């Protein structure tokens, strides 16, 4: 199969947007970096929810574990950012593998409840392990070495921005490869019909644990990025709101499309940023209206808008 150059258009648009935003909003790089980190997190959720159909409201379990792992790694082992990312990935994957062994036996509401429970348990463990994690005060004292020994993390956040963008781009490319692979096809198959997958010889449970573990590693990378760029890990990394917002962002953008994660995060966080600035007390109303509008009018999310418009044009 020859590669289709048109497939690269969305990637080039993202790159152009990243460059443009860097120059247009040089004093909002911290916010833009948060968006990039969230994109990594929601991309990992898309693999789980959008592709494999695993219902979860506890994806922050892996994000938070990655964040604490990277923070502790930087404080006690090495302040090298890339090694810290690896530590976050391993920690996220490990917690996903262990919790996945239990969770992937469940379905529907039970699975949702279990996913929430895992994140809440981890949050409480982090809270109680105050000597290690800093408890409610958060993990402080994270100092990062320059990226590749060259680019130091600066006060304005230029290095953090490009570092987060590079990681996000690599995760996006990696996930594009994964979802186009036999592994990705099997994830879609499980989403469509686990019964049929078993009937074609697939060990569905083991495959779900594998998918969840891979996504956990990516969520761990997102958490590690957050810890490294902000030099702080708080208990909020495990919060239910964090998991739930990620689901909302993915639904807004469109599940099972990867680029839906990018669009959803960008839209949600931008609207949240602007709405909170305009009306600090009622901004959630605007977010709610946005979600309702998308769910009612474009159930497939922003990625479904072109298709919806085309159908409208054909009068269907």
């Amino acid at each position, binding site marked *: *199969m020859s590669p289709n150059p048109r497939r690269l258009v969305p990637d080039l648009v993202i790159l152009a947007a990243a460059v443009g935003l860097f120059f247009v909003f040089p004093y909002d790089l911290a916010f833009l970096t948060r968006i990039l980190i969230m994109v990594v997190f929601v991309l990992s959720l898309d693999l789980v929810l959008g592709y494999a159909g695993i219902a979860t409201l506890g994806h922050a379990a892996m994000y938070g574990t990655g964040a604490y792992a990277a923070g502790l790694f930087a404080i006690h082992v090495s302040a090298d950012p890339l090694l810290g990312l690896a530590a976050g990935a391993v920690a996220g994957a490990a917690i996903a593998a262990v919790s996945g062994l239990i969770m992937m036996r469940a379905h529907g509401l039970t699975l949702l409840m279990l996913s929430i429970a895992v994140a809440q348990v981890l949050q409480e463990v982090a809270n109680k392990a105050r000597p290690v994690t800093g408890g409610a005060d958060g993990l402080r004292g994270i100092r990062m070495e320059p990226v590749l020994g060259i680019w130091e993390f600066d006060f304005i956040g230029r290095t953090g921005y490009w570092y987060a963008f590079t990681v996000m781009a690599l995760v996006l490319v990696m996930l594009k*490869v*994964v979802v*186009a*692979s*036999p*592994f*990705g*096809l*099997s994830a*879609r*198959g499980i989403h*469509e*019909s686990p*019964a*049929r*997958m*078993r*009937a*074609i*010889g*697939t*060990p*569905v449970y083991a*495959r779900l644990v*594998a998918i969840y573990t891979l996504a956990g590693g990516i969520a761990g990378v997102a958490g590690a990025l957050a810890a490294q760029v902000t030099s702080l890990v708080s208990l909020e990394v495990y919060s239910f709101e964090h998991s739930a917002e990620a689901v909302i962002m993915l639904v807004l953008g469109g599940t099972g499309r990867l680029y839906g994660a990018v669009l959803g995060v960008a839209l949600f966080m931008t609207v949240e940023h602007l709405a909170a600035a305009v009306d600090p007390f009622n901004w959630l109303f605007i977010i709610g209206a946005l979600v309702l509008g998308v769910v009612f009018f474009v159930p497939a999310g922003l990625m479904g808008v072109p298709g919806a418009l085309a159908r409208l044009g054909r009068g269907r």
Partner: protein
Amino acid sequence: MSGLEVNGLNKSFGGLTVCKDVTFELGPGDRKALIGPNGAGKTTLANLITGIAPPSSGTIRLDGRDLRGLREPQRVRAGIAKTFQITTLFKRLTVRENIRLGVSERKRQGLKLLRRADGDRATEAEVAELMHQFRLTRHADTTVENLAYGQQRLIEMALTLALHPRILILDEPAAGVPTSENHLIVEAIERLPKDLAVLIIEHDMQLVFKVARSIIVLVNGAILTEGTPREISRDRQVRDLYLGAGHG
């Protein structure tokens, strides 16, 4: 013996026995039909053979190997595959992707992460061959949910055949298919590999008598009789069963 041996199979749910001492053999090239009224236990028997449900007692052997303890995916890999009574496909995937998934899982490529699912030439050639065999080539890139039910039944068979089974269980392959499209199913069964052992569960007697070379009649979970289509069509018990006692 090579092939499938079902011996003294029983299945009970509490006090309800749905499979009673069922014994039969299915060898390479066999075309055996399993018929019986609704609730006779045909699909239950198929589920016991494929490992969807465990039997209460009795043995199932494939080429002499006891399948006890093997779950459904393991039995598929051992060579037993089944189509579903109610079409169970990957409806938002294309026809090509459905069959590719079957071939890919049979080849145990499902954990491969770094190459494209459509990048293996041997797999693609096999997918194309199966689509050709079941007259699906012109629908290759259509999502399954957009195809007629008769074509979906053909995809069921193509997907199952992609697993290279030695024992193929067709659970009501013509169920829900309009009479005008029944010939598609008959033709597809006739084109199956000659050495494949096929067990057809079907209500449509015309189809059964066209494709089966022997028939098992199941009533209340037990085998009433077994014979050739000619023997079965003349069997008084079977005629009583289907037409009612005292039909003349």
